[in-house]
């Protein structure tokens, strides 16, 4: 399928919203890929972190369907090394927030192995609620 690019998309409401929530200039990213190179969780992602920014830059809303934004653990390795100072964890958060506010919920504690649930530290559950639910 050919993706239609137009000003309504690349400077459209989705891009504006992502930039507003994250406080980042999407186009500051020149796609060098250093974030993807250093991301510790990248193996579990279906899109590379730089591709997530890329899709956001182009206003591709289907970026919300990827698992990458939910796999990102906000470890901040990428922003520590980003040559352009792009705060990718904030971008990921913005995308999560947009999805969550549309009613997506990603945390299902019932699906966790009960023995694990019993053991996990409280802050993992609190953090999980903050990141994956609304």
């Amino acid at each position, binding site marked *: 399928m050919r993706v239609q690019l137009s000003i309504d998309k690349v400077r459209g409401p989705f891009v504006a919203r992502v930039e507003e929530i994250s406080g980042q*200039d999407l186009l500051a990213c020149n796609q060098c890929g250093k974030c993807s190179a250093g991301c510790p969780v990248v193996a579990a992602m279906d899109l590379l972190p730089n591709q997530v920014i890329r899709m956001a830059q182009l206003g591709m809303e289907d970026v919300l369907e990827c698992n990458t934004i939910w796999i990102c653990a906000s470890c901040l390795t990428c922003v520590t090394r980003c040559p352009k100072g792009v705060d990718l964890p904030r971008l990921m958060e913005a995308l999560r927030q947009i999805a969550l506010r549309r009613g997506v919920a990603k945390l299902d504690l019932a699906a966790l192995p009960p023995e694990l649930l019993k053991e996990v530290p409280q802050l993992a559950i609190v953090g999980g609620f903050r990141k994956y639910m609304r």
Partner: protein
Amino acid sequence: MNYRALVIGAGIGGMQAALDIADSGYEVFLVEKDPSIGGHMAQLSETFPTLDCSQCILTPRTVEVGQHPNIRLLTLSEVVAVESGARPESEGTLTPALSQGERGGHFRVRILRHPRYVVEEKCTACGDCAKVCPVVVPNEFDRGLAARRAIYIPHPQAVPAVYRLDPNACLGLFPLACGKCGEACERQAIDYDMAPETVEVDVDAIVVATGYELYQEEAVMAYAYMDHPDVMDGLEFERLLSASGPTGGKLVRPSDGKVPKEVVFIQCAGSRNPEHGLPYCSKICCMYTAKHAILYKHRVHDGQVYVFYIDIRAGGKGYEEFVTRAMEEDDTVYIRGRVSKVFPRDGKVVVWGVDTLTERKVEIAADMVVVAAAIVPSARSRRLAEVLGIGVDEFGFYTASDAEMTPVESGVPGVFLAGAGLGPQDIPETVAQASGAAAKVLVFFEAEKAKRRKDTDRQD
């Protein structure tokens, strides 16, 4: 002793070389094929990375060249033959020389001067002639985006500020079919009987600075260039941006005069394409496209620019920062991937490309498309190289004797190279290189003088 140099090509490179040599006290013949000097730089709107107005920084140079006591400017002229080792005592036919004195006479150069049909000394550029001329043809200086008459001046700041009659457009010179301009000219500056003239000059060194043209072959045409009025090359876009251009700096589409809201720039049109175009990189396109993006946004605040590219080549002082500015401040969307197809649809120009970073095919329905056509050497470069006995590569760019250690030396003693005739390069590089070629000329003169001193001593 009075040595003389010949500089071929009066673009920014040739002018710089001529000025450096002339300012060092030597006479320079500056030969230009076009009716006015300044080359492509005169056509530019602004220059990267400072966005200086091109005319503003160029005009002092063109005026200086035009008025320089040591520079003899020959426009509408081309070098047709060069004979080396000419007799020192010989005098060229182009007399009187600017000043008398002993000369080295290393080369005898034959120059063909095409008739201007307007006597330079008489013309005041009042424009009365053009007002009455009935013939309307595209203006080359504006890359065909505006019209001119058969008698015309390329642009208002042209040096020399003299009109020229285009014999191909004129209704007829032999016999005279119209003659209106001649009637209109109060100063009687128009001479329909002017004939081509061949002059000979003796010079001691030559700088070749014949510059570049834009590629217009298949690889560029594939992007609907020529098929669609709203698809243009970089120089056409410069004219559209220029305050002295056909629209007075108002950015509108040639097709319908509307302001384009979405503009796509296609890099490497013909460049880096060994199969269907040219294998080399044209070097300057990445930067001028970033400049176009910024200038476009200055004029159309709510517009959007897309740039299809393979690699962004911003190597140069302040260049990386400039491209960053295009992205961050002017929201230019760079798309890494080549364009495969451009075609019209519903009054738009549709661009099919790919974003290799998201691995998706993309389509943009643009209002205007600008192709960064490859830089090719001036059409006459091969012939000139033959005349001078210097080398060219397979594309017609001149070759230096050693590209790395002697980049401005042709290998023929006394013949030096500068500017985009050697290969694509930008203005500062051309200017520095032209000064470099001038230095080699000055050094060459000294060596010649020393040789002659030695000869004279021996005779004594």
